[in-house]
Structures are given as structure tokens and as C-alpha cells.
């Protein structure tokens, strides 16, 4: 079929206003937040109804057009970079919260709902949706599910997958597949909704998502502990968990990040400190008081030189502002900022920190490290300028080595950013040849023409 005829078909399916063909519009959907080369799609469509989304999916399959679903495009592993000549299907026209059920504590949403807006709507009704990825003010719930996004509360409250109760999604033939339910317990059929989580748009196109909600904690206490070494800080993390305390958040920053944040905000952070822990315990007031005291004690025993406990909401905000400032402050130092999310079992954090230190020296690179120490999800952030070709080569080698070391410590390639295009080459290293082949066989049956976000997670088809 000619290009014009295909465009007309899409226009009939989603409305003429919702099909973008100009060079400028297509270029604007050729990238995401990953530091990767952009790829121009042939067409961009923005369905505004469930039915139109199904039709668009079928049209792509009928014409053998690669289809990449895109929410807010905040992806950090290239999962929303389109395939050459493919179609980008936007979900931000599908942004309705269909139901928030207070009695049964769940919500039904369309994939394009912005995470923070959803969390705020839920909070208005006295409930809580914990996953809070760093991009939550713009990221969409569909994208969060597709990437299994995490956030600061992963340690105690889990990540997106722990909140997906069910899902309707379109298969490549434009048929609606239903999985999961509005009940807490459900073992009807395969756990297809579970299969969709972290599938990065390679297995189906999300239509409606049922999300679990929980009651919010009654009280919380935040503190900042200062350590003379990263080792002491990371040993404190291990000690807190070993003592059966699970803080809501347990975040770490190295000296480089501390100094950068202080330069940026001037909020009075200790610039001489080798490491900082930002800790929040929450729950019943009595439990909070008890756990806060224990955490304080453990920090001191493990060498904390100073401990600041937030007395009120303003002080609590200041603690979390310091953490929120980490990425923006680092990002201002150099043009290119490669934010990695290598993750290790939390007992291995001291070893991983040491490895990162060695890697930064070996490749002569600036690496600021901060992250979710409590769940072992670190964000080594390499500061560079992609235009400096020699340095960029060293960056690529350093990234390879970061993953080698994380895997050697029993860790994983990605805690929360996904595999996408950026890390598909390492997938077999973490899993096995058989895993990769099993995944490819599965995809080849569900998506025989290979149109669903090709090249992501399991790599290009030709390698199969």
C-alpha cells in the first residue's frame, strides 16, 4: 500500500488531527531521555479512544509497520526510541482516570495518565499509590508499567509491578486481551498482566490498567546522617536492614554529589562529609518513634559523625529537597549526563561503591553516586560531553565495566530504568542463552511480524 494510503487509513482510525506526518513533528518523537542516537519514525499517531488505539495497533500489524508506544518519553534506556520507518503511538491522549474505588482500594486508569497527577487524585481520597519514579511529574502510568518503574519508596513499598492487579491490552491483531481483576486474589488463567509489566511495549499495547491502592502511613520521621566514609554509610544501610527495620526510604549520596548539591542550593549540607544517608521511617506513631530511635542508634554505632532529625514538615521537606536536587545539580556540571541504575543485593553495596570508585579512577571519569541504597539500586552518574569522542569511548568502557561488576556481585543490569536498546547487549550475560531464546520464541508467536517495539530488550530479530 502506498504511504499516502496508509496515512489515510490511520486518519480514518484515529482522526485526521491525530496523525502527524511533517518532518518536524516526526523529529520531535525521534528520541527519549536516553543518551542514544535518535531515529525518525515515519508517522506519529495520537489515539484518543480505546477503540482507536486498537485500530491503530491492527493497522500497524496489517502493514508490517514497527510500532513504538510512547507516553511522556522520559525513558532512560531507549525503550521509546522508534524503529526506522516505524509508527509512534502516543498515549497522552488516553489520560483518563476511569475509577478510584475507595472501598476496595483500587483504581482503573488509561495508560497516558501522568503518575504524579494520579497519586495526587488518590491522595485526595485518603489513599496512597506509592511508586514515585523521579520523572513522576511527567511520566505516565502506562510507561511506568511497561518499564516496571521504581522510585524512592521501593525498599518498603515495592515498585510498579507490586501494584498492577490487572490489565486490558491490545494484541497485534487488534483483539482486546483481558487479564487480572479488581480482586486482591485472582488466579484466572496465565498472569498475562504480570507478563506485560516490564515488557517495554514488546508484547502488547496497554489499554486499561487496574492498580492497587493502599492506606497511607499515619506518621513519618525523616533524618539525615553524616558519615566519614562511604563504607561506613553503606555498612549502616546493611545494619539497619539486618536489624529488621525497613525504612520507607533509605537514600545515599557520595561526597561529590553532596558538594554539587550544596553548590546548587546552598542549603547547608556538610561539604566535608564523605557520605550522607537520608532516612525516613513511617507507619503507626509508636512504631515510628521506636524505629527512628533504633535507626539513630545504628547510625551512631556505625560511625555517623552527625545526625539531624527533622522536627517538622519544613525540615522534612528540606531533607528530601537535598535528595531531589541530586540529579539536577549533577546535570548542570557537564553537557552529557549518563544516569545508570546498576543494582546489587543491598549487602553488596559497600563492594559496589568500591567498584565504582575504581572504575572512575581507571577511566579518568567524573562519577557522582547517589541512589536508593536501601534496595541496592544505585545511580552512578557519569558526567561527560558526548562530543568529546575520546572521553565518550572511555565512558562506554566504564559502563561495560559497571555492569560486569554489578553482575559479578549477584546484581542486575537495571533496577528501574529498563533494558531498552541501551542494555540489550548485556542481557544474555545476566540471564542465559536459553532465556534469550525462550523470550524470542515467545515474542515470535505473540508478534509474528515483529512489529511491537522491535530491537528492545531481546535485541534485533536477526540475532535470534
Amino acid at each position, binding site marked *: 500500500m502506498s504511504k499516502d494510503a496508509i496515512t489515510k487509513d490511520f486518519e480514518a482510525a484515529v482522526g485526521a488531527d491525530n496523525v*502527524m506526518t*511533517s*518532518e*518536524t*513533528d516526526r*523529529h*520531535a*518523537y*525521534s*528520541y*527519549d*531521555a536516553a*543518551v542514544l542516537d*535518535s531515529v525518525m519514525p515515519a508517522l506519529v499517531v*495520537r489515539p484518543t479512544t480505546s477503540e482507536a488505539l486498537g485500530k491503530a495497533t491492527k493497522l500497524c500489524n496489517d502493514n508490517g509497520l514497527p510500532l513504538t508506544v510512547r507516553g*511522556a*518519553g*522520559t525513558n532512560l534506556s531507549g525503550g521509546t526510541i522508534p524503529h526506522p520507518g516505524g509508527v509512534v503511538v*502516543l498515549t*497522552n*491522549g488516553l489520560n483518563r482516570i476511569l475509577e478510584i474505588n475507595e472501598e476496595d482500594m483500587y483504581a482503573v486508569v488509561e495508560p497516558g495518565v*501522568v503518575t*504524579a497527577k494520579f497519586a495526587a487524585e488518590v491522595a485526595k481520597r485518603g489513599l496512597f499509590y506509592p511508586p514515585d519514579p523521579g*520523572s513522576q*511529574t*511527567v511520566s505516565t502510568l502506562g510507561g511506568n508499567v511497561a518499564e516496571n518503574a521504581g522510585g524512592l519508596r521501593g525498599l518498603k513499598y515495592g515498585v510498579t509491578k507490586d501494584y498492577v492487579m490487572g490489565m486490558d491490552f491490545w494484541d497485534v491483531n487488534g483483539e482486546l486481551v483481558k487479564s487480572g481483576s479488581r480482586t486482591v486474589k485472582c488466579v484466572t488463567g496465565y498472569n498475562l498482566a504480570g507478563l506485560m509489566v516490564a515488557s517495554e511495549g514488546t508484547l502488547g499495547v496497554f489499554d486499561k490498567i487496574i492498580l492497587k491502592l493502599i492506606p497511607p502511613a499515619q506518621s513519618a520521621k525523616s533524618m539525615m546522617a553524616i558519615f566519614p566514609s562511604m563504607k561506613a554509610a553503606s555498612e549502616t544501610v546493611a545494619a539497619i536492614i539486618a536489624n529488621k527495620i525497613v525504612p520507607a526510604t533509605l537514600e545515599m549520596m557520595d561526597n561529590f554529589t553532596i558538594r554539587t548539591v550544596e553548590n546548587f542550593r546552598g542549603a547547608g549540607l556538610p561539604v566535608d562529609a564523605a557520605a550522607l544517608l537520608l532516612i525516613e521511617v513511617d507507619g503507626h506513631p509508636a512504631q515510628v518513634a521506636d524505629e527512628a530511635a533504633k535507626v539513630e542508634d545504628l547510625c551512631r554505632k556505625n560511625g555517623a559523625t552527625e545526625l539531624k532529625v527533622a522536627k517538622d514538615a519544613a525540615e522534612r521537606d528540606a531533607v528530601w529537597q537535598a535528595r531531589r536536587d541530586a*540529579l*539536577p545539580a549533577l*546535570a*548542570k556540571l557537564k*553537557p*552529557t*549526563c549518563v544516569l545508570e541504575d546498576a543494582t546489587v543485593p543491598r549487602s553488596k553495596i559497600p563492594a559496589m561503591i568500591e567498584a565504582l570508585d575504581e572504575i572512575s579512577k581507571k577511566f579518568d571519569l567524573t562519577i557522582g553516586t547517589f541512589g536508593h541504597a536501601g534496595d541496592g539500586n544505585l545511580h552512578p552518574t557519569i558526567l561527560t*560531553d*558526548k*562530543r568529546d569522542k575520546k572521553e565518550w569511548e572511555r565512558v562506554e568502557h566504564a559502563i561495560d565495566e559497571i555492569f560486569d561488576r554489578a553482575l559479578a556481585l549477584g546484581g542486575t543490569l537495571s533496577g528501574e530504568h529498563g533494558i531498552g536498546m541501551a542494555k540489550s547487549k548485556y542481557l544474555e550475560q545476566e540471564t542465559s542463552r536459553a532465556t534469550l531464546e525462550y523470550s524470542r520464541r515467545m515474542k515470535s508467536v505473540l508478534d509474528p511480524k515483529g512489529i511491537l517495539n522491535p530491537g528492545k530488550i531481546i535485541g534485533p530479530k536477526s540475532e535470534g
Partner: protein
Amino acid sequence: MADIHKLAQMFQELDDQLVGCMRCGMCQAVCPVFAQTGREADVTRGKLALLDGLAHEMLSDAEGVNEKLNRCLLCGTCQSNCPSGVKIMDIFLKARAIMTGYFGLSPVKRAIFRGMLKNPKLFNALTDMGAKFQGLFTKKVDDLLGSSCARFNAPVIGDRHFRTLAEKPLHKLVPALDTPAGKSGIRVALYVGCVIDKMFPHVGQSIIKVLERHGVGVFMPSGQACCGIPALSSGDTETFDSLVGINMERFGTGEFDYLVTGCATCTSTIKELWPRMYQGPSAQKYDIAALERKTMDISQFLVDILKLEPKDATGGKSVTYHDPCHLKNALGITAQPRTLIKAAGCGFKEMAEAGVCCGCGGSFNIAHYELSREIGGRKAENIVASGAGTVATSCPACMLQITDMLSRKKAGVDVKHVIELYADGC
């Protein structure tokens, strides 16, 4: 196009600034245009990607990029929220200048900027004449707001509810002032700005009245020119330079402690853009940086320098406040105008999203009226929902846009400049 390569080279000059965008997409959360359209080319990240694409010859449709570049209010909200600290306004203004250099200025803009703005006397004469005859073409629609609409089908005006030109502009009511410092010991220069002069002379009169009341000497030279932002945002740096030059001739020699304005846009243009974007000869003759340091918004001057304090509301009007982008995003001024409203004795009611752009954006309102109206409609809803009887702001351009929006809604809410409230009392 044959010389697209040349254009690409010009855009490569912006490369060092463009490369700072890490494509995180956080600008999507705050961009008022993106909030309406949901299209990536309408948000900053997309526009920066397009400029980058042009610079590296990945794109050939320069006209298309130019069209997207102009779908921006220049409200600066993205810049003040950008995690990477990208100097977005600098990039956009320079990019518009490059585009205008490449495509040329449209005949209409050429006539307005170079034919009229550049010549303040002619500009005044034309608007004076317009004020006399406008009644033939317009009819009143809202007495409270003083808004009118077109009597006949008029392409530029459309169905806007607008403020007509003042019967007597400020330059007729008060041609010039040069009074010594009174009890305050302070003397200020007053930069009037076009919209206050020609549409809201009462705002200018209020500033003068308040300054006199506080014993502040006023230096207000005649023949002031436009601050240059309309020309600059259309990429016409030639007219911009010429206008800054005229103003530097008027103000550069005066003796004063501060330069105050009642227009958020003029204030931010003088402070942010005159020193950075001006490339004419006055840079050697006058100290633009010194003028920049002296320049203040009127409420900032009254609160920070004269130490005005809030009063208990005395049963006067209930007032809400809209933050103009050029005060909030460009200069970080949000507290002082609110203090001034309270100093006037008004009851203050904060509205939702007070810091979100009203959608005016100068020429954006003319080129993209539908979008401008959608953004402004939301502002009007928030104003009405606040329950206040009056909305005050610090920018006459915002006053025009908000008047249009409220008048259409027949909301019964009055629009005032904060200085009017303080001058006349609540």
C-alpha cells in the same frame, strides 16, 4: 533550499547551549502550551531537539522548525524549572533572530517595528489618532472591565474583548517629570512602557501619585521608546538595538537611584535582555549594566526599598493575584506584589495556579489566538473560583488578556494593576 547548510552553520553557534538539554522532558510538566496540545514539538525539549536537528542537518524543513519555534509564549516557566539549567530564553531569542535573518521580517512586522516603534513620535501620533476614531469601529461590552469588541469583521481583532486605546495617553496627561527627592531622599526614573502609556494611563498616574505620596522624586523623560521585546521576540535585533539606543539616550544621563516600571515585561526586558542582547553603539556610551542593577518592579521598590508593610484588611475588596511570567519566572518576584495588595488594605485570596501563564505572550496572542484563549480560559476559571471580586497583576499585557477572558465569561470580576489598588485604596 540551497543555503540550508548556511542556516545549519548559524545554528551550530548555539550548539554549546543546546547540548545542555539532557532530554529529561521535565518541561512537559510546566509548559502551558504543551498542557493544551500534548505535542512534543510544542514543548521546550521538542523545540530544542528541532534546533539541534537543524544545526546538524538532520532536518531540512527550516520553515517548519520556525513555525514550531514561534508556538511559544516565551513565559520562561521551563527555564526556571529546568533541571539542567539550560538557558532556554537565550536560545529561543537567538534562534528567532537567526530565523528572521534567514527568512526576513514579514512586511506587517517590518511596518510596525521599523516604521512605527522605532519612531516614538510617529507611534504616539498614530495611536492618538487611533484613539479618536476607534469608537467608530468598536462597541462597549463590559462596563466594569471597560472592554469593547469589534463592530465589524476585523481580521486581527477577531472576536476579542479588548481595552480600547485610552482617550488621553499618559504622554498627553503628564508629558514629562523631573522632581527632586522629597522626604524619602530617593529619586527614581519612571519607565512607562507602551501599554501603560496608551491603554492604561491610570496605572502610570497611580505610580506617580504613590511616588509623590512617599516623597520620592521622579525623573520621567519625554520621548521614551518601546523596551524592544516585541521586536526581539520576532527576531528583529536591528529594531531592538535601535529602541534600546533611544531609551539609553533618554535615561542614560539622568540622575536617579532606581529605575521603576509598572510593567513586568518591560522590567525583565531591561534587566535581562538589554545587557545580554543589545549590540548597538550605546553600549560604549552608557553603562547598561548599571541601569540593569537600578531597575525594579514598582511593587519591589515599594516593599524592598520603602519597606511598605501589609495592613489588616479593612473590609475592602477581596483581591486575588496573577503572577506575570516576566516577574515570577524571569526575576523571581512573587511576594512583593502580594504585600502591596495587603498594604492597600485589601483582603487577599490566593487563586489556584497563580503562577501559571495567562496565555498572552505578546504576539503569540495574535498568531495563535485559539491556543492563547484556551490557556487564558483556565486562568479565568481559577480567578473566578478564588471568589475574589478583583484580580490584580503587575503586567499590563496580562491585564489585557485577563480582561478578554473575564469579559467573555461575563464573570463580574474587575481587573486592576496592583499599584492602582495601592494608589486608590481598597
